[in-house]
């Protein structure tokens, strides 16, 4: 990594506090650095500035200079340079810092301005908070407690607008609540590159709508719900399901593709209600794909495996390990690892394969990349398998080599870790020829054919790390407890290693990380605890020659072979 050049810093004074910020920063961001909150609705750090809500008004002043000589004019009272304060307030979002800029955010004039803006915004706002999904995370609610007047001077009738207009399959619009901040419009235009939203009509008739014949149906539409500062845009999936203040937030990672978008899983009492993006400026900014938000539904899916079975009969982890031990003693074992497993699980998979002397296959999943936050490689942790040494070349799409080995009778037992062998290209006849040990979360052709089935946990029910396409190692935490009958992946793998005759490994993260740091050179100085929430970039140069399938995404540019992009 080449260190970024030292940015051009300018010193500004915000409410009496001096701070040096990069040139081009706006006043809202500069104030944030000195922990001063400038309220705003339309401004969003990752979108263009329009300045239409007028909430972020500030007073600004510049050091006075003599117009003729350009010499600083000194204030004799303080001995400092005089500040020429502008008579009218300015909007903070569209005011970029300049050297010596002085800003006041708490003067009576500013308070008056904000109260005036709030009063206008609330004039036609319905008294909807009891039924509004945004309640609890609503900027309008928050600012109303500081700048609202507590009663309304508006005696006329409020505007009536449509309350439930579907903008697309996943987004519902409540027009009465909309404050016309245009964040959703700018998001669609600038980030999703799908320009479908716009305002029509004037004045109090202004309405957000889709262009004729279009719908807000791109795979990033739910980000408009996240950035809506009020409850105008709501998700049809989360709508009226649960109030946000009950939900526990857990940091997680989107497992859809190798982008590894940072997410927050919102759960209550072991039930997940929604998934939203978590800001990580190096990976996903503040966005995530809609498809990743529905992944929580796999947790309570009806085809979820819930009991250990050995030869079709109910068993325990010990009996499964004993049965596996018998299979392993016959030799000729193949291990199918997974690019969906965590780094820790892949490390244990490698230990298992090494103990068994087994060959390891990985299943490749390649889809269409969308150049934003879905990459072509749909395995969230293929890089983890490379870093831990589970594999040293990229996996092929089909398990053809394994299939041929089964046909030739060289493989008698297959340990499938989270992978459906039938979906990965093995035929039913090939599956019937081998004994299968299956560790996985959901029922599929492999779990039906398997001799030993150990149900494991989904990404929401365990903690671990993934390494994304940038070779950024990112950790996720456990949001909800696993279902009864499911075993922790690490415990199951540890039991299999013991069954194969290897040294037992404690199935907890600190113990595995001690071993990972000792044996994996790329992770030598790390522990699970000291990985920051936004991840840690590893050195990917040892693998830079491999023909990765990913094309360009939001914060990733393929290093080599762009011909393979968006395969």
């Amino acid at each position: 990594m080449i260190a970024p050049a030292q940015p051009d810093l300018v010193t500004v004074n915000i409410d009496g506090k001096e701070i040096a910020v990069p040139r081009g920063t706006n006043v809202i961001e500069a104030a944030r650095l000195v922990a001063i909150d400038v309220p705003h609705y339309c401004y969003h750090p990752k979108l263009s500035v329009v300045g239409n809500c007028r909430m972020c008004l500030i007073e600004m002043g510049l050091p006075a200079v003599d117009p003729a000589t350009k010499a600083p004019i000194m204030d004799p009272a303080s001995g400092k340079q005089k500040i020429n304060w502008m008579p009218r307030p300015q909007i903070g979002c569209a005011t970029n810092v300049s050297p010596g800029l002085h800003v006041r955010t708490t003067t009576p004039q500013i308070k008056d301005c904000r109260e005036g803006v709030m009063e206008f915004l609330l004039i036609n706002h319905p008294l909807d908070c009891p039924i509004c999904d945004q309640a609890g995370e609503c900027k309008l609610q928050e600012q109303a407690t500081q700048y609202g007047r507590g009663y309304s001077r508006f005696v006329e009738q409020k505007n009536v607008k449509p309350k439930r207009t579907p903008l697309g399959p996943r987004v519902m619009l409540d027009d009465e609540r909309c404050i016309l901040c245009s964040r959703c419009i700018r998001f669609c235009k600038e980030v999703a590159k799908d320009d479908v939203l716009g305002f029509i009509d004037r004045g109090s008739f202004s309405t957000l709508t889709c262009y004729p014949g279009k719908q807000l149906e791109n795979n990033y539409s739910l980000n408009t719900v996240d950035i809506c500062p009020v409850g105008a845009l709501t998700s049809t999936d989360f709508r009226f399901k649960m109030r946000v203040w009950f939900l526990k937030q857990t940091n997680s990672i989107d497992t859809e593709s190798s982008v590894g978008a940072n997410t927050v899983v919102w759960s209550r009492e072991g039930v997940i209600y929604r998934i939203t993006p978590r800001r990580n400026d190096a990976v996903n900014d503040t966005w995530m794909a809609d498809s990743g938000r529905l992944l929580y539904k796999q947790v309570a899916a009806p085809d979820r495996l819930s009991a250990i079975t050995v030869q079709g009969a109910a068993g325990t982890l010990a009996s499964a390990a004993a049965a596996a031990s018998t299979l392993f003693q016959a030799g000729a074992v193949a291990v199918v690892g997974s690019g969906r497993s965590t780094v820790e699980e892949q490390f244990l998979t490698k230990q298992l394969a090494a103990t068994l002397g087994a060959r390891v296959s990985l299943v490749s999943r390649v889809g269409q990349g969308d150049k934003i936050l879905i990459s072509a490689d749909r395995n969230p942790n293929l890089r983890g398998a490379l870093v831990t040494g589970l594999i040293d070349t990229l996996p092929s799409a089909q398990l053809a080599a394994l299939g041929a080995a089964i046909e030739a009778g060289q493989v008698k037992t297959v340990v499938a870790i989270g992978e459906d062998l039938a979906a990965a290209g093995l035929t039913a006849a090939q599956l019937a020829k081998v004994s299968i040990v299956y560790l996985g979360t959901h029922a599929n052709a492999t779990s039906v054919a398997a001799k030993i089935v150990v149900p494991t946990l989904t990404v929401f029910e365990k903690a671990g790390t993934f390494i994304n396409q940038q070779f950024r190692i990112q950790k996720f935490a456990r949001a909800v407890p696993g279902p009864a009958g499911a075993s922790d992946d690490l415990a199951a793998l540890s039991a299999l290693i013991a069954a194969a005759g290897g040294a037992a490994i404690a199935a907890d993260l600190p113990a595995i990380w001690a071993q990972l740091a000792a044996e994996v050179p790329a992770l030598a100085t790390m522990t699970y605890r000291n990985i920051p929430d936004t991840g840690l970039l590893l050195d990917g140069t040892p693998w830079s020659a491999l023909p990765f399938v990913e094309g360009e995404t939001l914060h990733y540019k393929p290093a080599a072979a762009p011909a393979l992009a968006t395969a």
Partner: protein
Amino acid sequence: MAVIPVDRKPLSFAERTYMPQILSGMKITFKHLMAPKVTMEYPEERPAIPAGYRGVPTLVKDPNGREKCVSCQLCEFVCPPKAIRITPGEIPPDAPTRHVEKAPQAFDIDMLRCIYCGLCQEVCPEEAIFLQQQYTMTGYSREEMVNHKDRLYELGGTLPDEHYKWDKKKAAEEHGNAH
């Protein structure tokens, strides 16, 4: 320990007959026999409950029979012993109260947990939950002691409404300032 001798006064003749004590006791008995009754024949007879009494929490409907609760879950949030459990739900778009959009799918109050504090009534923005005058809750099992939504409405009945907030909203939608 010092020993303190106590003089035992010999009883007088009247005292030895026990008559003064019996008569004074009978006087109290007869006084109460004549006095107005202070007990009541519970459960056939019930006391008058003062206004503001905090009895069993109930859900109420407005005079038009609309269920007032919109499942905002503030009572669930504020409830100190976590006795309230609400499953929010959407009002189907073909219902007459569709403009309210939201109503509870399930509303359970566990009366074994309820401490009759009245915070749910105080916090309710829709004036839908009231601690009314019902003061006895009995049951043979723990399940019976959980009041479900239909039971809560049965206990609550209908109360007068000062605001008709949602009716006004509907009227505005139909005739008012429609955009």
